[in-house]
């Protein structure tokens, strides 16, 4: 169990392609860290640098306080679970699991065979026991004698997990381990991995492109884009207080609604709507372009009957709109509405009165809304909560 410290870690490939730039992060001992971001964001590269599979261009990586830049993977005491499982096809499940341990024995060489037969045998027995124990916890004991090609995807994933577990390394690394499984199995395995972490209390670094997986698994998560760390925080922080436009858009489903416009005299003004910004939350906002971000669950849809026909009133938080599309999720529904040319998505309780093409009033709740500097990567503009 160990801490991991990354200090200004960069990775540049030939041709000046920057995969990771200046990542500085500190993971605590026993923490479950998830690296998340769209594909090509550098999360896997970062993981592989921790593993030692990728050379570090600049900066340092320290595991358990020891800088490991120049250590080969085998000396870093890490174990990794790969996306395609990477089970040795010519070895049985048992051999696959024991392989890493056999190498680390004290009496593995010829001298062991000749002069320390007893110790050697004891070591081998210990390995057998360990493999068996681990297999039992993962429920793959009956598969031990099989070859990987005779296993299902889920079983292979378990074996890959077992292979890492049995080594009892300081750090577990996961490189998108669940992305090849079907949805149901993925959720099942997710819970299992979470449970494993609870039990072993080991440091784990987990890479995924699936923000939901990240949110459910992580103690803390690192959101990355184009090789740059966008935010490092708990899932709650990332959701509630995204560092910027990108994080806000990446974390949470359905995706946050963004409305381009400007802040002007305590008002947010876009082509299609004007919203008064509560002064308590955003005191003294300087005028200028900005983006308003509202999560779909902060939108409410009111029927004209309830609110009265007052389409001219746009200073408030209710705006008339047309229903464009309805997606039923069972207990709730996602409704896409158009305010003029602006499309917003609302997640609401089931409401049978809504029909596609009908008109509604949209109530925009600003309690959990955010303002960002304009542009794709615009930083969140500080509000009263930040000070507190």
């Amino acid at each position, binding site marked *: 169990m160990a801490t991991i410290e990354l200090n200004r870690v960069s990775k540049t490939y030939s041709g000046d392609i920057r995969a990771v730039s200046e990542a500085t992060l500190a993971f605590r001992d026993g923490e479950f860290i998830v690296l998340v971001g769209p594909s090509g964001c550098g999360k896997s590269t970062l993981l592989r640098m921790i593993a030692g599979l990728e050379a570090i261009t600049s900066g340092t990586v320290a595991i358990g306080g020891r800088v490991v830049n120049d250590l080969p*993977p085998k000396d870093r005491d890490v174990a990794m679970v790969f996306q395609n499982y990477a*089970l*040795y*096809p010519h070895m049985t499940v048992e051999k696959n699991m024991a392989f890493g341990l056999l190498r680390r024995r004290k009496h593995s060489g010829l001298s062991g065979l000749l002069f320390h037969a007893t110790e050697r045998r004891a070591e081998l027995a210990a390995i057998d026991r360990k493999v068996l124990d681990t297999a039992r916890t993962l429920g793959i004991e009956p598969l031990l004698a099989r070859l990987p090609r005779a296993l299902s995807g889920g079983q292979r994933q378990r074996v890959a997990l077992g292979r890492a577990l049995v080594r009892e390394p300081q750090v577990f690394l996961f490189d998108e381990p669940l992305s090849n499984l079907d949805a149901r199995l993925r959720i099942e395995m997710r819970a299992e991995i979470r449970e494993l972490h609870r039990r072993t209390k080991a440091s784990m670094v987990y890479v995924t492109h699936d923000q939901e997986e990240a949110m459910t698994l992580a103690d803390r998560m690192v959101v990355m884009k184009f090789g740059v760390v966008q935010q490092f925080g708990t899932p709650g922080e990332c959701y509630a207080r995204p560092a910027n436009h990108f994080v806000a858009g990446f974390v949470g489903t359905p995706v946050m609604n963004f409305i381009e416009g400007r802040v002007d005299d305590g008002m947010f003004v876009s082509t299609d709507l004007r919203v008064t910004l509560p002064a308590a939350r955003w005191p003294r906002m300087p005028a200028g372009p900005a983006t308003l971000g509202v999560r779909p669950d902060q939108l409410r849809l009111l029927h004209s009957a309830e609110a009265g026909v007052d389409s001219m009133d746009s200073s408030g938080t209710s705006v008339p709109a047309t229903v464009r599309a309805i997606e039923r999720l069972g207990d709730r529904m996602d409704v896409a509405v158009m305010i003029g040319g602006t499309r917003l998505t609302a997640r609401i309780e089931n409401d049978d009165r809504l029909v596609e093409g009908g008109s509604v009033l949209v109530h925009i709740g600003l309690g959990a809304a955010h303002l960002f500097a304009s542009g794709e990567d615009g930083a969140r503009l500080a509000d009263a909560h930040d000070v507190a």
Partner: protein
Amino acid sequence: MRSRIGKSLIYALLIAGTVTFLFPLWWMVAVSLMTPEAAQAATVRGGLTSLVPTDPQWHNYPDALMQMGSVRWTGFLDALANSVVVTVLATAGTALSSSLVGMAFARMRFRGSRPMFLVMLGTMMLPAQVTMIPLFILFRNLGWIDTFLPLVVPAFFGNAFFIFMYRQFIAQIPEALLEAARLDGQGWFGIWWHVILPLTRPVTAITAVFTFIFTWNDFLAPLIYLQSDDQATLSVALNSFRNQYGGITKVNLLMAASLTTMVPCILLFLAAQKQFIEGLGKGAVKG
């Protein structure tokens, strides 16, 4: 769902081909069992009539082997032992070195690997006759003449064709497998031994069979490098059935001896052919 006619057609082709392909072997067997007179007549005016030996002379086999070399039986036994030693060493050497080099070219980044790889492919185009005399001069200066070294040592330095085959095959092994092995504590050598070698068994089978057959049948190299009578390999010893003018005096014995010396090649091929195909096919590599 294949029609019955299609299936019969396939079998017809397979059987016709088999008859054609096995024919040489059958003819050799037939001639090897003939009396000298019948054998001679068969090679001169046989047509299709000479394919069935009417009165099999089984003693041709011991007779033929006995006559190899200058001392009864010893010549054959020496030649057999020599062939086995040379072939086994050359085969092992070629497979080991070619897979190592193939792994370097397939998996390891080192500057100059690409030009070197191209040069290596280029060496396949070189006719052996070009290097024959210079190599002889080299081996003579090393004091290797009349030893097995010129036949065996070069094999330990890889063979371009097999290196190429290994490279192509190893390049298809998923990277993650190698990375897993590295994390499991293996160095490059460990990866080669524990992961690459087991996974490239089909290539090794091909390499072994090809090299074995080539070395076993090779005539020119042993002829040139070996001198003492008791150092001769089987292919050279067989040549004693040829005469000054390229003719054959004892065709029946020659065939008997030839067939006997081919037995190991045939058996090896039969033993390895499963590996050959199954391994080269799908699935073996893809976890």
